[in-house]
């Protein structure tokens, strides 16, 4: 285990994706991440309240099909929520490996006391709640740093802790709209388009992780913690700085570009043999264009007018048609390898299956498998960085709800009887309250 962050303790109040991802990166790197979970287990992705299962839907399910609507959102292994659905939700489990779970009621004094002790022992407290959620829990930076002046307190809300929209409730797609980036995305001349995933979440999460690391670096010098008020809206606009700059100078946004490039031509996504099979191609120079045309052997592409970038831009539609009719005769993987041998930037358009099965990612050690109680052995995307020691992080399975209650409380100095009492009183739990 590479353990770059060994000895760092992170407390996470993470909802959905951005916060859990930031904390997961730190957990992968060796930090002790404790996920503090609500007694009703809501909002963390433990099945999104889909415990109410429909037996008829379950029995009708087959591998490869979307499950019935009632229990679809948890992405349970083999579409089976099991006895404890909150411990089987694939969407929770992939986001929360390398963490421990403490399920504690912070609204009662005994629970708050546990939490205060934890805060005193922690290096980082991270959330991606709205400022209203932060106030509701009483975990604002000022209050937390009174308990622990060395604490790094990062909030990663949708809009930031100040400003007129600070209290807006937000998910990733809302930020795609508010940032202008949905409008910048789309087929040529088409309507605004969201990304296939809620891209603002990982963009915000990665910025959050970087900010925490920088604050840890600073604390070595200053000895005191700090507060970071991160707005997912701002981090998302920050990946479009050049488009915003262009818009400010020209007075209007550039038109949507579909799959084309503002720098190279041709560039596009073309059909391959087979159903819904595609290939992405970018020809980045006149020299690459010559090699590309030669490899295709398509006479229509060898026009002298296409020798220059300008010529290819003007005739992009015709070129696309000729390339598309040629590529449609080939299997995507075979074609990509052929073109890559000529040094041309081509990739098959991989599905989720294609990514999981990709031999390159497997050789790199990105695709991982872990065996988890109540789940069994499953395959997941792993840690996306290779260090020189070729030492990818170990994958500890995602915790069951409250799985580490007792372990953590005993570390904090509670004896077994006190823990038992808290269990009986419902201060801590391993199954959710409520419907």
């Amino acid at each position, binding site marked *: 285990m590479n353990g770059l962050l060994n000895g760092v303790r992170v407390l996470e109040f993470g909802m959905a994706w951005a916060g859990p991802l930031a904390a997961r990166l730190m957990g992968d790197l060796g930090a002790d991440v404790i996920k503090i979970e609500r007694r009703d287990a809501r909002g963390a992705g433990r099945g999104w309240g889909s415990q109410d299962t429909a037996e008829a839907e379950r029995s009708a399910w087959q591998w490869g099909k979307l499950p019935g609507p009632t229990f679809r959102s948890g992405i349970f292994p083999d579409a089976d929520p099991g006895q404890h659905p909150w411990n089987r939700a694939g969407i929770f489990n992939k986001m929360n490996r390398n963490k421990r779970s403490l399920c504690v009621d912070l609204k009662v004094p005994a629970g708050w006391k546990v939490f205060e002790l934890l805060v005193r022992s922690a290096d980082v407290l991270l959330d991606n709640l709205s400022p209203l959620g932060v106030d509701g829990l009483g975990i604002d930076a000022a209050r937390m740093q009174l308990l622990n002046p060395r604490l790094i307190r990062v909030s990663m809300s949708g809009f930031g802790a100040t400003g007129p929209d600070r209290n807006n409730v937000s998910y990733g797609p809302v930020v795609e709209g508010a940032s202008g980036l949905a409008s910048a995305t789309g087929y040529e001349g088409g309507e605004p388009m969201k990304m296939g995933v809620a891209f603002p979440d990982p963009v915000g999460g990665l910025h959050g992780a970087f900010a925490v690391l920088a604050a840890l670096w*600073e604390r070595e010098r200053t000895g005191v913690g700090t507060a970071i008020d991160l707005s997912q809206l701002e981090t998302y606009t920050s990946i479009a700085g050049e488009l915003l700059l262009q818009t400010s100078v020209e007075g209007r946004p550039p038109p949507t570009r579909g799959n084309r490039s503002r720098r190279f031509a041709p560039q596009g996504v073309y059909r391959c043999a087979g159903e819904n099979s595609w290939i992405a191609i970018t020809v980045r120079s006149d020299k690459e264009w010559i090699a590309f045309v030669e490899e295709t052997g398509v006479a229509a592409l060898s026009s002298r007018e296409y020798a220059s970038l300008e010529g290819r831009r003007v005739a992009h539609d015709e070129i696309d048609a000729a390339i598309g009719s040629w590529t449609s005769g080939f299997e995507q993987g075979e074609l990509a390898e052929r073109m890559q041998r000529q040094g041309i930037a081509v990739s098959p358009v991989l599905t989720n299956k294609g990514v999981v099965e990709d031999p390159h990612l497997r050789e790199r050690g990105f695709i991982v498998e872990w065996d988890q109680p109540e789940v069994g052995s499953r395959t997941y995307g792993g840690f996306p960085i290779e260090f020189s020691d070729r030492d990818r992080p170990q994958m500890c399975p995602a915790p069951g709800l409250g799985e580490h209650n007792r372990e953590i409380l005993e570390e904090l100095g509670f004896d077994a009887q006190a823990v038992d009492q808290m269990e009986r009183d419902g201060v801590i739990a391993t199954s959710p309250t409520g419907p």
Partner: protein
Amino acid sequence: MARLALDGVRVLDLSDNVAGAYASRLFAVVGADVVVVEPLGGSPLRQAPPLISTPRAGRRPESGAFAYLHAYKRSVALNIGDASGRSAMVRLVARADLVISSFDGTPDIALARDVWLRAANPGLVHAVVSGYGLTGLKRRWVSSDLTDWASSGHLYITGFPEREPLQGGGPWAGYAAGLTTAVGALSAMLGARASGKGRLVDVGTMEALAGLHQWSLVHFTHQGVIKQRGGNRHVESFHPMGLQQVKDGWVVLGVSTQAQYESMCIAMELPELITDERFLTGGHRVDHGEEFDALIAPWLRARTRAEVVEAFQAARVPSGKVLTLDETLADPQLEARALWVTPERFGLRAKMPGVPFAIGGERPLFREAPQFAADTLAVLLEAGMAPAEIDKLIAEGVAAARTEVEA
């Protein structure tokens, strides 16, 4: 002014792609001294779109990408392929914490460079960002932003189901790879500070982006489902979760919980939808999306973006306007948060994001992206080179320096 988080940290950026430049920009905005080491022909990013006119007569349009990505940094022009250029580079590396570099299809050259860079400074962290990484079957593959979206599984799931897969509206695959690189590099630096031992950090964009799937990969590994494109809708479990048309454009709705759903129905004065069997859960509403949208369209289309979002946010329903980029530039929330800076070389109305987050509320003073070779003299002098040595490098055509007069 208080010190910034990474004050005293020195970063050298040898990269020539968006990913490397955004990684080093992140270091710059938290206080590191970042020097872009450009080849004598200038960084290729200086040609990257968009090319934007400047108000000064006779000046060619300049790259908005370079102006944005390399803001807050300095520039040195040095040919590190030349032996004396390399020895000058070694002087810089000896006192650096981090070098960021990139490659495209040439891992062997990148690895050879890693050997002499880290020999010059055993505590150095060297982060290398590329399309596919330094190891593995596809390490010699070349890539573009489009092919990065394709290889990582994001392209296939973006766009309308009946049309071809669609890329993002900007080089965001590169930005995300840059973010991953920065996280890897800074964690390796924390390790190096403790142990004195530097590291190579190897980030492939395909892999970095493949690590940013919400539930796509799990859909396949848990249920065998091939995730499909859904246009502006969520295709599996949630609805409405995406764009909806209103009177004056589009809004985004993001309903995931039952409480949010009920609040939305009540806000629209359509309480009967709550108990309608077709719409009981998000999954049901996905399956009956067309019917559902037809029922809420009259309410939405009679209202503006502002009216819809005000009503829904008052009911705590996640929602927001879809702004165009010019509207984003005028957005009161971003204005109130002081996000914008003005790179004056493009005129006084030019605006771009400055610092994406402020640690302890501290931000560096805005500094425009450097002119080519603007800091060669200062940086080489700081590294302890004698003026005569520097003159010799310039005379031999191994380094270039821009003088005040030229600037």
